[in-house]
């Protein structure tokens, strides 16, 4: 009886209320574990300790210096990768020679953990932002290329034939059928790139940097400052979530036909 009652109570909640409840209970469990189970700040920081560290980092202005550098690296790399990825994707989807020429490189690089090349780029480009931008580009661009190409190639033959029957030129077929029908795929590739780009920034900074959230994480780990480490990670998590939900809004505006 009790089980039925509680399931009824759950079913009256909105989806977002359930999600909020999940996050709150997760934080609660985390707090309990760090208070009573692993009550050692060298191994685990509690949510309150993390919050305190976060506020301190904000107050001193240290956080913003790290965030600003990481943001520059992320957005520069992401923008380059997006433009490059869409262009190359469109090229190999429409030109068989380009496809055959570039395909082995794209498949190879996509499957390779290119973050491992981070130290090499630091050697070549120095410890500044450019070595990180290159890593971000490498991590993001192939996801965009592959999705863009898949989107163009998956254009329904029925739509193309319908447009041909109305006398469409190849150029009209591309701009009025292939491109719009590929847009959801391209957006999916760009969305996939957000997470990959964030990983790129952090790992590249861990290999060597003066500023940035990855640098903050590395320094905190070296000094066993778990609250600051978690503070940096939570900033990354929050920015990932924010960018993904911004993307969801963008999708609603750009490809309204894919959703109700």
């Amino acid at each position: 009886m009790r089980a039925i009652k509680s399931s009824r109570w759950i079913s009256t909640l909105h989806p977002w209320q359930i999600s909020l409840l999940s996050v709150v209970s997760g934080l609660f469990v985390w707090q309990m574990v760090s208070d009573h189970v692993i009550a050692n700040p060298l191994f685990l920081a509690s949510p309150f300790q993390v919050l305190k560290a976060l506020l301190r980092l904000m107050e001193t202005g240290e956080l913003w210096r790290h965030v600003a550098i990481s943001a520059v690296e992320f957005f520069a790399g992401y923008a380059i990768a997006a433009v490059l990825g869409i262009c190359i994707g469109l090229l190999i989807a429409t030109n068989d020679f380009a496809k055959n020429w570039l395909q082995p490189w794209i498949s190879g690089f996509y499957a390779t953990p290119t973050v491992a090349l981070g130290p090499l780029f630091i050697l070549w480009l120095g410890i500044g932002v450019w070595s990180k931008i290159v890593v971000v580009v490498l991590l993001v661009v192939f996801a965009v290329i592959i999705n863009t190409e898949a989107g163009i190639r998956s254009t329904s033959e029925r739509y193309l034939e319908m447009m041909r029957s109305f006398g469409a030129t190849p150029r009209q077929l591309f701009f009025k059928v292939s491109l719009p029908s590929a847009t959801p795929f391209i957006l999916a590739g760009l969305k996939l790139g957000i997470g990959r780009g964030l990983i790129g920034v952090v790992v590249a900074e861990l290999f060597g940097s003066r500023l940035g959230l990855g640098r903050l994480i590395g320094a905190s780990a070296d000094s066993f400052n778990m609250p600051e480490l978690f503070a940096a990670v939570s900033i990354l998590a929050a920015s990932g979530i924010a960018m993904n939900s911004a993307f969801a809004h963008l999708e609603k505006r750009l490809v309204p036909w894919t959703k109700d």
Partner: protein
Amino acid sequence: MSKLVSDGLTKSFGDLKVLENVHLTIEDGEFVALVGPSGCGKTTFLRTVAGLESADEGAIYLNEHQITGPGRDRGFVFQQDSLLPWRTVMENTVVGLELAGKLNGAEAERVRALLDLVGLGGFENYYPRQLSGGMRQRVNLARALAIDPKVLLMDEPFSALDAQTREIMQAELQRVWEEGRKTVLFVTHQIDEAVFLADRVLVFARRPGRLLEDIRIDLPRPRNMATKRRPEFVALVDRIWKLIEKDVRESVLIEKI
């Protein structure tokens, strides 16, 4: 005037002869239905008229001009509606005019009136996924009519609809056709649909695909549900069925194997 002539049309796909030496003439404003078993080449014939397939031998002429590719003097209504999901009803309907660079205010008004004619007034800004199968086929029809073609080519447009919707769409198509009296080539599997709609039913046979018989349907218009119960109607359906029965049985057997 806009006479459609097939002069010895022959077409093969590999070793398979899908159409052999088809000779026929279709007068302006005639509603012609093409029936036959699967693989008789009726759809290939329609697609060749549309310019989506090319003839191996012979040719098709519209107003004495040989057809060599798609053109805006022919409007195609597809079996699957092929509506572009990212375009609204209105944007889908004007697509032919848009491709021709002929879309302007006056034309848009004409298309709006056309949507009213096919019963879609008020749905201009809906997306295809928001529409039922019957409504999507109305857009499909309006899109072909929007370019004001001389000939309307319809490839089993109602085959994906349920039986009731199909009956309604047949009556609607007849009503729309009465408004403009365009030449129509209508491919269907349903013999009763062909007899109900057409002035002439062309019966095709298979292996090789060829024109078997050209049957004139003199039932008075406008036709309605009662028409389908008239003895002449039933006799015509029966006669056409007898013509293709053997072929259909064979094609069913082959498809089963």
